């Protein structure tokens, strides 16, 4: 009974634990893919798969950032508006004569600064409620996008670098998908293997304990909102490139809720302390395949809301079943 030695198969329980955590939505994803492969001739085609990935790379990049926030026991409702504002910023910078790459860098930096300073600053150092702050920012940033652009989409067509990021190819593989994969890998590695990543889990799991153990809780909170904004900034460049123009009015509207749904589907919870970027990837894929399947199957668009809602519930039901 006083056995403090390490177990013989150290990965055993962790693997099981991981499976347990993801298998719900993971299994739902597998079932969905199997079903669509059998019923939709076009589903498994390379072009369709690339469509799915390309369409959802923006969502995935944003969700990766949001994973940090949710694991730290927060929420950022402003990522959609930030993405829209980022596009407007980029177009404005470009049209002000700044060359493409510096403008892209500047856009991402400005977004990160804005999100970090206002969201992160107020929440981490001001002790404000995250929901109210990011809800206010949802409105504020969208307003800023409208004011800056006067509601007019500005073309970024003249700057091939932007289009390349949003819609280019490297050896036949879409650039935005590569960026999404890269972001995901970096996000995963940071959460999994760095001091900062572990601190995010600690802060989400027990803020007081983390603070007393020597983690700078406020710095961690600040950083997660900056990361969410950074990812939104990258997503903004991707989306702008993809549409060859900024979209101040409706661009990325509702993205925050889709991203939150993806993160939660992926095993994170609002109680904080749990969730991984890998889980988020499964969550995004699930939503992505679902949306694709629904349109491929020719489900009338009005039914799509119902279908999405039902399948979301089914996915977490499966998750529940697995856990008990």
């Amino acid at each position: 009974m006083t056995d403090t030695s390490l177990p013989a198969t150290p990965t055993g329980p962790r693997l099981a634990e991981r499976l347990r955590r993801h298998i719900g939505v993971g299994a739902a994803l597998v079932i969905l893919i199997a079903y669509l492969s059998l019923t939709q001739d076009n589903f498994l085609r390379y072009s369709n798969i690339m469509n799915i990935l390309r369409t959802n790379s923006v969502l995935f990049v944003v969700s990766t950032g949001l994973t940090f926030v949710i694991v730290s026991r927060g929420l950022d409702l402003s990522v959609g508006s930030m993405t829209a504002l980022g596009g407007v910023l980029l177009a404005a910078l470009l049209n002000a004569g700044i060359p493409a790459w510096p403008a892209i860098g500047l856009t991402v930096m400005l977004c990160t600064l804005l999100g970090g300073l206002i969201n992160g600053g107020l929440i981490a150092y001001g002790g404000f409620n995250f929901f109210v702050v990011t809800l206010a920012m949802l409105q504020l940033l969208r307003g800023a996008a409208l004011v800056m652009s006067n509601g007019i989409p500005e073309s970024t067509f003249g700057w091939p670098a932007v289009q390349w990021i949003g819609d280019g190819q490297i050896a036949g593989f879409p650039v935005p998908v590569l960026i999404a994969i890269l972001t995901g890998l970096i996000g995963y590695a940071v959460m999994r293997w760095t001091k900062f990543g572990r601190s995010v889990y600690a802060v989400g799991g027990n803020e007081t304990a983390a603070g007393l153990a020597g983690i700078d809780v406020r710095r961690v909170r600040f950083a997660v909102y900056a990361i969410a904004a950074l990812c939104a900034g990258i997503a903004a460049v991707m989306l702008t490139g993809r549409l060859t123009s900024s979209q101040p009015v409706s661009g990325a509207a509702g993205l925050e809720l889709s991203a939150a749904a993806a993160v939660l589907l992926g095993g994170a919870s609002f109680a904080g302390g749990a969730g991984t970027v890998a889980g988020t990837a499964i969550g995004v894929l699930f939503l992505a395949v679902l949306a694709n399947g629904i349109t491929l199957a020719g489900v009338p668009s009005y039914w799509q809301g119902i279908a999405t809602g039902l399948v979301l519930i089914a996915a977490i039901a499966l998750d529940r079943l697995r856990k008990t």
Partner: protein
Amino acid sequence: QDAPVVGILGANYAIESARAQYEALAAGLKEQGIEFRFLDAQLDINRQVSQIDQFVNEGVDAIVVNVAGDPNAVLGPLNRAEEAGVMVFSIGATPGFEATLVQADLPSEELGRLSGEYICAETGGTGQIAMIEAIDIPVLAARWDSFTTAIEANCPALDIVARERAIPDDAATARPIAENLLTRFPEIKAIWTMGDGPALGAALAVKSAGRDVIVTGLNGEEQGAQGVQQGVVDATWDMLPVQIGYQLSQKIAAILKGEAEAPSETEVFTVTDLPIWSAETIADWKAYDDRIDYPGIQ
């Protein structure tokens, strides 16, 4: 006596063509020395209801309403306005409310017809085409209804294989819809869209898939023009929003100044001869805000 005041009730100022109508309207009123106030419902009909009441409270002489949703919703406040002696004008119809003096209609039917005839001609009248519509509200539905009518009338052999909806009707939403359409229908010849945002999205999907598919938009907005300039959108038709707003302003001014008699039943007008913007004509395209001096109503 004070100069008359007109209250303009916008549906959503953030929409380019809508804004052009309001600004042109205001520009025309300003020219005539008539004061105006502007309130924007931002597509929230509930807000518009209280804005109408607010204008009536403030005692404006006339209001111009561009209904931000279902016209039924504004019947109550419009009746209250009429009872209070406020003249009512409108951009778009307000069915159920009889006392509108002048109603400026959008040329939705002509847009649908022109784009139908174009696709008919460009496809040679045979093969598969798909449509990207939007939310099913009467002002928009006229576009796809008259488009399908035009197809049936001119080239019944054209096969409309899919009618999808982009909600919201923007480029980001339309692009994946178009991508799926291209996957589902390898033989498709054309995609008709209900606006310039969806057109740009659909056209970029076509380009990215490396396919040769005709894509058309409607409205002559910035995004449509961009698409044509980029060589991805084949054509879009201008809806002349500046003319709509300006013509309405002149009619209102005449009535308010007593130069014209208030019509006894609603006078409806719309613009015609909508120019097509395609590769040949796009050099002449002008952004809405370059067509008239916007007074900057907000």
